[in-house]
Structures are given as structure tokens and as C-alpha cells.
């Protein structure tokens, strides 16, 4: 990569696969369960986290030398909360329909432990540019898993993708439904998200044995 040094590009690429925040670090599981019943919600959540984590990491990194260590967690929380409120307000003002569809999800970004995790583990000890890359990388790694899980849950649970009926119409019995296929409503419930994440973890560790912990 010409644009980034090898060390910098590692910051983006590692979280996408072998240091993935969800499947390897097992962070952010809560939101991966809550919002992945539909692909669209997963995508928007991924984008919102991308913004909050990218910007938050830079802010924390810029003030890392003046944060009092005793209250650093509170400072981090304030930064996340402020960014999330700004995202929420801007969406409400300029993209009202979208913000309605997201509802509580935007607020839930605050509780995403990946964000606090990256502030604490990376931004407090690195410069703004590297922190920015780390934030983007981790948010992408998170987003990829979210989108994979959302894809399977919406496809198998509702027979749709982004709202389009890709498998035919379950009521009119067209497409796959005409030969007796049924949607698996269980896919829409949170436990199935865990099982899908579990399958991803299994596949990933089968392919790269070095990831298996004792």
C-alpha cells in the first residue's frame, strides 16, 4: 500500500480478520445480538460506529496527555456520549426518516464496549493518526461481522434482504415458498445471532489454527 506504511495498514487490516473485535476479542456482542435481525439496521449501525469510533479515537488521542488518570473512564464515556448525541441530532435534523428507523440503536452505540475498549487500549497510548486508523479498522471489523450476521438472519428469518423479497412471497406462495419452504422465525430471535457468530468463530479458527486459545 503506497498510502499507508505497512505498520499503519496493519491497523486497518488486522481487525478485519485475525484480530476481529467480535470473533477474537469478543467485544460488542450485545449489539451484534440486538440489531442484526435486519440487514439494513446492521449496515447503518456499522456506519454509525465507524464515525463514532473514528472520531472518538482521535479526540481521546489528542487529549491523552492531559486526561487525569483517575477519571479517564468517565472522560472517555463523556466523549462517546457527546459524539453519539451529535450523530443522533444531526440525523434527526437532516435525515428524519432514517433516524426514525434506527430508533434506539443510535443511543445504543454508547454501550458498545468496542468503543471504550479501543479508547482504553489504543487511543490513550498512540497519536491521532494511528488512533484514527485503529478506530476505522476496528469499526470495519465490527461492521463486517454485523453485516454477515444480519445477512443470514434476515435471509433465513424473513426471506428478505434489505426488505426485498428475494426468496419469493411467503403469503402468495411464490418462488421457494411454492415448494414448501418456510421462513425460520427463530432466526429473528437474539439467540440465533449468537449461533451465527459462533459459526463464524468456528470457521475462522478452523482456517487459522493459530487463533485457537488453550
Amino acid at each position: 500500500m503506497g498510502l499507508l506504511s505497512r505498520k499503519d495498514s496493519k491497523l486497518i487490516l488486522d481487525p478485519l480478520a485475525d484480530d476481529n473485535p467480535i470473533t477474537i476479542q469478543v467485544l460488542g456482542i450485545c449489539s451484534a445480538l440486538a440489531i442484526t435481525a435486519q440487514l439494513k439496521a446492521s449496515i447503518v449501525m456499522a456506519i454509525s460506529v465507524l464515525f463514532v469510533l473514528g472520531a472518538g479515537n482521535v479526540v481521546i488521542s489528542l487529549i491523552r496527555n492531559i486526561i487525569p488518570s483517575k477519571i479517564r473512564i468517565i472522560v472517555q464515556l463523556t466523549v462517546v456520549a457527546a459524539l453519539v448525541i451529535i450523530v443522533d441530532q444531526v440525523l434527526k435534523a437532516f435525515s428524519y426518516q432514517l433516524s426514525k428507523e434506527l430508533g434506539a440503536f443510535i443511543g445504543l452505540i454508547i454501550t458498545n464496549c468496542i468503543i471504550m475498549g479501543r479508547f482504553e487500549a489504543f487511543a490513550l497510548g498512540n497519536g491521532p493518526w494511528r488512533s484514527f486508523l485503529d478506530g476505522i479498522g476496528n469499526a470495519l471489523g465490527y461492521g463486517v461481522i454485523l453485516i454477515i450476521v444480519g445477512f443470514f438472519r434476515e435471509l433465513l428469518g424473513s426471506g428478505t434482504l434489505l426488505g426485498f423479497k428475494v426468496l419469493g412471497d411467503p403469503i402468495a406462495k411464490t418462488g421457494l415458498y411454492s415448494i414448501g419452504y418456510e421462513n425460520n422465525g427463530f432466526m429473528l430471535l437474539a439467540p440465533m445471532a449468537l449461533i451465527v457468530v459462533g459459526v463464524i468463530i468456528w470457521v475462522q479458527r478452523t482456517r487459522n489454527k493459530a487463533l485457537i486459545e488453550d
Partner: protein
Amino acid sequence: MENRTDKNSYTILFAIGMVLIVGALLAFVASSLKPNITENKRIEKQQNILYAMGVNENEEGSANFISTDKVADEFTKYITKQIVITNGTQAEENSEAYLIDVKKEQSKAKSGGERRLPLFIGEKEGKTYYIAPIRGKGLWDAVWAYVAMDKNMVVQGAYFDHQGETAGLGANIKERFFMDDFIGEHLLDASGNFVGINISKSNADPLNKDKTDNEVDAIAGATITGDGVSAMLRSDLKLYVPYFKTLKN
């Protein structure tokens, strides 16, 4: 040597400074965006009301409001009268009735005050629609609706919405397959008593052919949201019954 940032005085000053900066920033963002947000909410209300009476841009399967640039004109065109009902039957015209906050009126009623009931009267293709805004509780947060009825309290259309029901489950109350089930449903029973419409899990009529059974089919996995919607329809629309009785005479 003790680090400068470990001192208590520094910590307190930092905390105060941070609160001031973040507070000022958020207050600035909120107040500068507030006019846009209020306007969006007002437009949305008009869109919801028009949607309930069938003025919308629905395509097959998806619910689409009339576009925001057209909504003001269409609203004045179709909504011929807005009234506020007090004491059950006294109706007073009020061209800003749609801005009445149902939530505030409900809490007024709870604390012993009098609840104003807004009702919007629309005309479309020679038919008169009475549209009532109602509000209740779902599983996680508020649910609300605009229900368009004829003068016999037969539902002509409905728009449901929610604050934070589960995506893919309770959130489906704002999907066409659920909302369209209400069209033609009776709120009164055969002898004219108010019963509401029950979101029923044991509905023996999943295709919703029987419009006088006071039931529509529930959404699988959204029991509590469905119960909340049933309760909302029952308790809030009941308040309009005395007014609808005066229409018949």
C-alpha cells in the same frame, strides 16, 4: 515524582472544564438543529394523518408517505376540519389540533385534569374520514397510531409507529402486512357497543376475511407489542365513542 495529572485539584478542574465544554457544545448543536427537528416532526404528523386516510405513495408491500415537499398542500386539501373534543361530546374547531401532544393530554387526564381529544376530519373521493391520534405502551417504549374511521367506527386505514420495539418483531407493526389488516375492521360489536380490535394470537382468521370479529392476526414473536396495541386501541378510541354517537343523530 507525582504526575501533574494525578493531582486532585487538577482532576477536579479538568472535570469542570470538560463538562463546560461538552455541555456548551451539545447545547449549541441541539439549539441550532432544533428548528429543523421541530419542522420534521410537524411534517411527519401531517404525513401520518394523511397516510391513515389513504393519501400516501404506497408501492406494493412497502409503506411510503406522501413526499415532504407536497405534504403541506395535500394536508390542506384533504383535511377539511380539525376539531378538539372535550367532555366527550363538545367539539370545537381548531386548525392546529394536529399539534396537540397526545402524551401530554394523557398525563393531564391521569393527574385529574381534562384530556382534550383531537380529531381530524378528512374528505377523499366523497368519503368522510375521522382520524384519531392514539398512544400506548409497547414492549420497550411508546407505541402510537393514527386511526382513520368512518362515522360507524369502522376502520378505514391506520398508521402505527413505535419508539423502540424490537427490529424484525414488534417493529413490524409499522409494516403494511400488519397495518393493512385493520382496514375494514369494526371497532363496535354487532349491537353497537365499543369493543376495540384485539391483536389476537389465537385468531382463527389469519387471512382476515371476517371484518366483524374485532380481531386481527398477531405478529409472531411480538406478543407484548401486540397486547400494547390492543390496549391502546381499546382505551384511547373508547374516549371518542360519545362523539361518534352524536354523529349518528
